[in-house]
């Protein structure tokens, strides 16, 4: 599992992905942690198959007992089907996930982890002194989804938005946006069902101060590529993939 520190300040952000031992027939996904002095928030914990390498990777940054919070942007198995395993490994953790999907996500196994439902209009999660804004991203692609914005690190974990599928050893950041566009086009046309939802999200996100856009699949966007992505996404007609 590749680990890349993407923010280092009073707290840290680490991106995990590109697992070399991942079975070929499951899609690659990015996981993130927000690490504070005594706590660790795991964003998009991933599928069951990724649990062991992901846990092992997190142990480079935090002990098990300090993994206190999990976040799932939506209900898909590549996002959170490992929940049943985290549930048995963590003795005192909360899962922040959409209220709409609670009854669905619990199918993955959620007995000891406390499910904290996120209302449709979002909320704020506090991990020690770090305040993270939970931004609604409904119909992008899930009918109920959320992204995580850290105003201090200036990182937006943008779930499925900005996703692309890459070869296992690809770099973690976009290097040539014009080349990367073709890796994203079909996914966004096919997976994102609503131009209206897309426009509302872009309007909201343009008001945020963002250094890094961190999607759940593929490469992250930084610097000018953030604006390039928003412009490209704005001009793309979605819901047209078939």
């Amino acid at each position, binding site marked *: 599992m590749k680990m890349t520190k993407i923010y280092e300040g009073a707290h840290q952000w680490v991106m995990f992905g590109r697992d070399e031992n991942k079975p070929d027939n499951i899609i690659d996904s990015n996981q993130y942690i927000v690490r504070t002095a005594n706590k660790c928030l795991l964003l998009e914990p991933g599928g069951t198959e990724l649990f062991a390498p992901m846990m092992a990777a997190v142990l*480079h940054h935090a002990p098990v*007992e300090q993994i206190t919070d999990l976040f799932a942007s939506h209900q898909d198995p590549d996002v959170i089907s490992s929940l049943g395993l985290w549930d*048995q490994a963590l003795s005192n953790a909360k899962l922040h996930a959409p209220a709409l999907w609670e009854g669905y996500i619990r199918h993955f196994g959620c007995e000891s982890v406390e499910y904290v439902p996120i209302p449709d209009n979002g909320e704020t999660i506090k991990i020690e002194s770090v305040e993270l804004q939970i931004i609604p991203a409904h119909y992008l692609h899930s009918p109920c989804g959320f992204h995580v914005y850290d105003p201090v690190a200036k990182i937006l974990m943008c779930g499925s938005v900005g996703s692309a599928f890459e070869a296992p050893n690809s770099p973690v950041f976009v290097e040539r946006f014009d080349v990367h566009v073709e890796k994203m086009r079909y996914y966004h046309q096919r997976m994102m069902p609503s131009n209206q939802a897309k426009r509302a999200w872009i309007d909201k996100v343009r008001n945020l101060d963002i250094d890094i856009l961190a999607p759940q699949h593929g490469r992250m966007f930084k610097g000018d590529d953030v604006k390039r992505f928003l412009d490209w996404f704005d001009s793309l007609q979605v819901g047209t993939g078939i």
Partner: protein
Amino acid sequence: MIMNSQTKSQFIAVASITSELSAVMVVAKEISLAAANAKAIAFRAGDKAKGFQPITDFINELAKETIELVTNINVYALLLYRLTVNEYRRTAAYNRFEQAGKLATGARYADSMQEPIAHARTIMQDCQRQFKRDVTQLLGQLEAVMHHARAARVIAANSRIEASQAGEYLQSLQAVAESVDKAAHTIHDNVQRCRIALSIYRNS
């Protein structure tokens, strides 16, 4: 999570109990019906089937008890199925934790995985022990059904003797005896299959 062949067999064994027992339930209800039928014939036959009348009550009682036993066993089998699912999940978690522990070798906080691994191992072993205990108890309950089936066969043999003295009712009462015997046979065979499937998991 890939299921190993022993776990698969365990799932199949537990699921097959419900299937076999639903057939036993149908047959037990048939015995109950045969008893009611026999009672009516014996009543019509009067003195000619005097010896048959108490047998019909006995057959009916036996059928009722079998139905009650099977109903209880079915509830128990469902609990055993849930325990099997739980054991599977616990074992899978333990294996993943061990895998994570190995992959984390050299990680700064690798040692913190030891407690979840030890805890998962304890729970998994508790589940395995509980499964064996419950299987042993279920086998005992299945033995009680077998006992009823054997008793039903003895009754069927007695019924044939009594039927032979029932004059023109001989054929009807013999048919009742035959149906009880056949039903008892079916119950015996089905329950025996359950016992064979489960016996490898019992407490030694």
